[in-house]
């Protein structure tokens, strides 16, 4: 008889959290829990010190894309699939740029204001179509940034197609790098916390079955609008941050790149965990920069890697890594 084998998975035997009681038995277990959380924090903070010049710019860039990916993932958690994160990015950039150029407010004032009002603007714009689902909602989000971009181009307001140059920069580059890294980490851990709270439970339930949530007396459209505000504020922060960092405001803030790359990052990283989106943004952006030397082939190779990893790891890189971290795997004979 032919012998057959199968893979058997076993959870690592640690039950650290029983609803409200935290009980960790040993320092080994503490390390086991702490490592995946501390690693990105320490890693990024160290990178922010070590890197300078061009490399620091790439790190900031990666954090900005990471923020957009996080905001995409947050919207997707309540069933809003967007193809227009560039709307959030662009609105934030233009708000911050305009406040700085016309009112001469410093970056530290424009940044929080642009995040807040960017979130409000995006939530107000998209709340009109919040009843649309799936691909219909995605279509509108795809069109809105193009609409605004064309509006700016044809009317010539806010610098028109030339943009506005020489905006005030951050006090220094290290400050900017730290701001980007801390903003990114804060957003990552805050989103993970929100989604595991009762508030997040309701959001995820809306995605699963909105009729069941409605019969629970919950105004799902208001909840979705709130999620849009949170996502919008994060995206707008990224846009405002970029504008001041590059000291330039232009229509490129509404470019399709800012919509597509976050979706790719979430698709590769695994939806719903935020960590996946964050992790992959930190890989994809430097990878894309590294391939720059290859010229025209760059996009082809980039696409090849994207498609390849989607086929090999459809569950997402983060879910794969988490499984490897939390479970033993061994081969057992099938009897």
């Amino acid at each position, binding site marked *: 008889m032919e012998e057959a084998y199968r893979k058997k998975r076993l959870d690592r035997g640690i039950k650290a959290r029983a609803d409200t009681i935290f009980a960790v038995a040993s320092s080994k277990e503490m390390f086991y829990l702490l490592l995946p959380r501390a690693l990105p924090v320490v890693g990024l903070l160290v990178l922010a010190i070590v890197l300078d010049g061009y490399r620091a710019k790439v790190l900031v860039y990666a954090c900005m894309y990471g923020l957009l990916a996080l905001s995409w993932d947050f919207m997707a958690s309540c069933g809003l699939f967007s193809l227009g994160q560039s709307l959030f990015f662009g609105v934030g950039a233009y708000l911050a740029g305009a406040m700085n150029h016309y009112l001469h407010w410093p970056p530290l004032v424009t940044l929080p204001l642009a995040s807040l009002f960017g979130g409000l603007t995006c939530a107000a714009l998209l709340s009109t179509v919040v009843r649309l689902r799936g691909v219909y909602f995605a279509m509108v989000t795809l069109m809105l940034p193009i609409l605004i971009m064309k509006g700016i181009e044809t009317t010539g307001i806010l610098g028109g197609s030339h943009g506005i140059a020489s905006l005030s920069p951050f006090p220094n580059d290290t400050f900017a790098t730290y701001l980007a890294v801390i903003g990114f980490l804060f957003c990552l851990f805050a989103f993970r916390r929100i989604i595991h709270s*009762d508030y997040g*439970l309701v959001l995820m339930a809306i995605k699963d079955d909105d009729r069941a*949530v*409605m*019969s*629970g*007396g919950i105004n*799902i459209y208001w909840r979705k609008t709130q999620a849009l505000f949170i996502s919008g504020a994060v995206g707008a922060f990224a846009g405002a941050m970029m504008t001041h960092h590059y000291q330039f405001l232009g229509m490129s803030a509404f470019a399709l790149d800012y919509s597509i790359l976050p979706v790719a990052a979430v698709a590769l990283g695994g939806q719903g965990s935020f960590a996946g989106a964050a992790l992959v943004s930190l890989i994809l952006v430097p990878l894309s920069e590294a391939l720059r030397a290859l010229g025209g082939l760059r996009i082809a190779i980039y696409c090849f890697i994207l498609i390849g990893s989607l086929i090999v790891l459809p569950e997402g890189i983060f879910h794969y890594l988490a499984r490897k971290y939390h479970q033993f795997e061994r081969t057992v004979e099938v009897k």
Partner: protein
Amino acid sequence: MEGAPLLKVERLNKHFGGVQAISGVSFELKRGEFLGVIGPNGSGKTTLVNLITGFVKPNSGKVTYGGKNITGKMPYTIAGLGISRTFQMVRLFYNLPAYKNLIIPLCSQRVKKLRGGKYGEKDDAAIDLLDDLGFERDSFVPYKMAGSLPHGYLKRLDLARAMVLRPDVLILDELFSGMSMSEVASTLPMIEKFNEEGLTIVMIEHRLKELFRVVDRVMVLNFGQKIAEGTPQEVMQNEEVKRAYLGVDIEIS
């Protein structure tokens, strides 16, 4: 308020394309009443529930609740006003522990208002309610994944989800379908108790024996029309009802 109807449905009409799902149905419900709704498959019972609870908008007609016109309002508004429902096909979140299913309605404005502006400890409230409905806390049933529970528990979980909102009117859409005899026997007294405590209940059911034991009044639907209304005895004497339940006009010689 004694005497005035709590829920009033007037000449409700709904068609899906060429199919007249509900045509000209009117009825009234007094506070504390227990109404049974019966009818053959496809007679429009579930559509009637969907029309009252706002999941489907009527083509014409009017639904009044506590003197307020609620026709065509959103389902969450109607649930917030105190009309709760269960679903024939239970709509639950199977990848969550049973009690977490109740956290969602516990986050609603209605619950906040009923508790005097505070949500309080939601987990405790959910588990207490489930314990009352026979989810044995001591054997950790409320903590089990909803997807791992047997069908009878899922039906009761759906009932609990509706009861969390502390409704004034509870609409049960075939709660007992798929339940075993013993599950029905243990659930029925709970429903009766709710009614004795003053809850107004509309119960759609195919299990007539159990239904007739508890209801005050029965309404019979066939092809979207109300064909009879009255006490269980009156309704079962009705020739048209007999015909509807036996199917076609057959002459028995």
